């Protein structure tokens, strides 16, 4: 009787009033961490990390969908030739500012691209590990069910 009710619960996949016989509460899939052996090249990591902040960690740093979609192309203004006499100090000050900003932008972009690349590598490893885990679990489950079947064959249905 006792067993029967357990089995019913199991088959119904619904919790009963008895906590000890409940199926385990659902785990948040995001917290599931399969051990992934991933050692990125320290040089690559260095290229992906900002010196002022902590080293880039591919495990934690997820990129949102917003971040990942390819950058929209902004139309650049055509270059206009400026004669020498118009290149006054103000002009050069602006050029300097723009050059610095351009460098900054390029560096940021490069950094982000490197980070994404490392993250991709990590995700691949994690993917493989998860697949392995799934395979192992299914194997284990198969064996347990096999045992159950043998038991039932011997002792009748649970």
């Amino acid at each position, binding site marked *: 009787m006792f*067993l029967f009710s*357990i*089995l019913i619960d*199991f088959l119904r996949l619904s919790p009963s009033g008895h906590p000890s*016989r409940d199926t*385990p509460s659902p785990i948040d*899939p*995001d917290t*599931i961490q*399969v051990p992934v052996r991933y050692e*990125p*090249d320290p*040089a*690559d990591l*260095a*290229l992906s990390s900002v010196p002022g902040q902590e080293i880039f960690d591919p495990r934690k740093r*997820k990129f949102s*969908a917003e971040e*990942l*979609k*390819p950058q929209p*192309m902004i139309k*650049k203004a*055509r*270059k206009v*030739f*400026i004669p*020498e006499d118009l*290149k006054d100090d103000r002009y*050069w000050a602006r050029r300097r500012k723009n*050059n*610095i900003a*351009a*460098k900054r932008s*390029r560096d940021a972009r490069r950094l982000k691209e*490197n980070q*994404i*690349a*490392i993250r*991709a*590598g990590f*995700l691949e490893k*994690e*993917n493989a590990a*998860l*697949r392995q*885990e*799934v395979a192992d679990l299914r194997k*284990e*489950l198969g*064996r*347990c*069910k*096999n*045992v*159950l079947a*043998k*038991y039932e064959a*011997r002792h009748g249905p*649970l």
Partner: protein
Amino acid sequence: MEQANLYEVAPRPLMTSLVQSQQNAYTYKDTAGDLSEICENENSIDISAYIDPSAFNDEFLADLFHNSSKQEKLKLASGDYEYPHGANGTPGPPQMYGCLNAYMDSSKLEPIYDSQARMRPVAIKQEPREEDELGHSMPPTYHHSQHHAPHLSYLQHQIAHCAQTTMHLQPGHPTPPPTPVPSPHHQHSHLPGGSMKMGDRGKSKKQIDKNSTEYRLRRERNNIAVRKSRDKAKMRNVETQQKVIELSADNERLRKRVEHLTRELETLRGIFRQLPDGSFVKAMGNCA
């Protein structure tokens, strides 16, 4: 293409060439910065800054001047258009290596030119142009030339176009200054009569004739190579981003499955634990 794959992803995310580029960081950033500063419309980049001054001897550009020889034609057309020499002796950004190497052993540029771009019968290899999905990133000149008279070689067409547009495209700040703040006197004043370049900042040793066909030819090749390299990098980045999105979704799905299977297992094991031991032990195996 040894130097071109800067950010190769598989099997490792970043190849050591990334490290190289980091080592060249300052030159790379400075010069490549100015490379990309040159907007897609720009047709000329002063690459003389990247050429090792010691290479400007009689050997410089020899191959351009003996282009009637079949050997040269074969060499040019044989598909090592991209990067004929693997080794690279010059400093400068990795992107610049390939095309320059071809010219390192050549003779010095002849100062003779005329104001119109003279199409020399050189063996110009047409670059097979990949499908242009990123049309918006292409400079107008590039597209433009593709639709022109087919009897002219594609490259020659670009040269013609560039020669005409050179005047307008002298940017205020075209090329890699050794110092961040550019000096007020610029070297790129384009004199129609054609002249030697004088008073170049940072590279006074070499006077390069910007109107010669050879120069334009080299410029064109380099431009094409640069565009190709940039396109390739862009495609790679897009692919990597796609991969990250896909893998993230995959991993989420796999995690859910792992969770589900684990729960199932736990439930099953719970059952086993609660069964009477006696009759069950034989059938047990490792489950409980």
